[in-house]
């Protein structure tokens, strides 16, 4: 792995935006949640990238090693991953309910149904 300065932060940014775009532009509710997952995964990579130290190793102490990557972001991201999956689960169960109530999981169709029933 080379150390290309900021480029991999930029890749992370691009990744985030792919997810973010899916969230706001796609009408399918499942797709929105998928987008959310990509968005968050990119955020995880961002944290883990900043923890990396050149020439370091995983932060498991060993007398032979002296340079470790920063453990703190790892901890944060462990938490964030779990929070993310919890959100996903909740979002998906809402989708199931919405499908029951409207017979659709497409944003525009739901809107149309709503407009028709008013």
């Amino acid at each position, binding site marked *: 792995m080379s150390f290309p300065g900021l480029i991999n932060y930029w890749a992370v940014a691009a990744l985030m935006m792919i997810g973010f775009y899916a969230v706001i532009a796609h009408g399918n509710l499942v797709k929105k949640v998928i987008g959310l997952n990509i968005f968050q995964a990119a955020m995880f990579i961002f944290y*883990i990238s900043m923890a990396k130290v050149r020439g370091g190793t995983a932060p498991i102490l060993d007398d032979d090693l002296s340079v470790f990557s920063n453990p703190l972001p790892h901890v944060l991201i462990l938490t964030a991953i779990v929070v993310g999956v919890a959100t996903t689960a909740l979002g998906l169960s809402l989708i199931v309910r919405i499908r029951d109530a409207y017979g659709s999981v497409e944003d525009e169709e739901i809107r149309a149904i709503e407009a028709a029933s008013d």
Partner: protein
Amino acid sequence: MTLLGFLVATALFVVQARNLFVSVILMGLFSLLVAGLFMVLDAVDVAFTEAAVGAGISTVLFLGTIALVAPKERPVAPRSRRQLLPFLVVGATFALLIFGTLDMPLYGDPNAPIHVYVAPRYLEQSATEIGIPNVVTSVLASYRGYDTLGEITVIFTAALGVMMLIGRGRKFPRRRRETDEA
């Protein structure tokens, strides 16, 4: 680096796929790639978790959902107004992100603030203070144990929530039932 490239490509496929099933499977692949990347970046614990939670649990959840709802996404209506606003928002956010990266410490720089403040103590003292070689575990369980408690609470909340929303074969819409309060 290549890995990141792969990631971006996979993400694009995930988002573009009309078939949600394909999307979800690719999403699982995406998570595995992310886990691999974490491995490369020396975040072993996180890699394991991502593989288990992201690639495993999430995929199962998604599959279950699309089995219950529609497996296909409707084509996005090519209306320009609809497309323009998201592009603007995403563009602005992207610009802000890139703007933000400009003054960041370089990737892997051992003298970045995060490596010289707070974290060293974990690396230097935790062996004596906690006594576990895995610093991530030490921090997780002890220094920032409270976050972990919060994390458990989040899972608890979500589990309860899912139970309330779709537990016990509830169907919607149901007729309003007049519940008599004792």
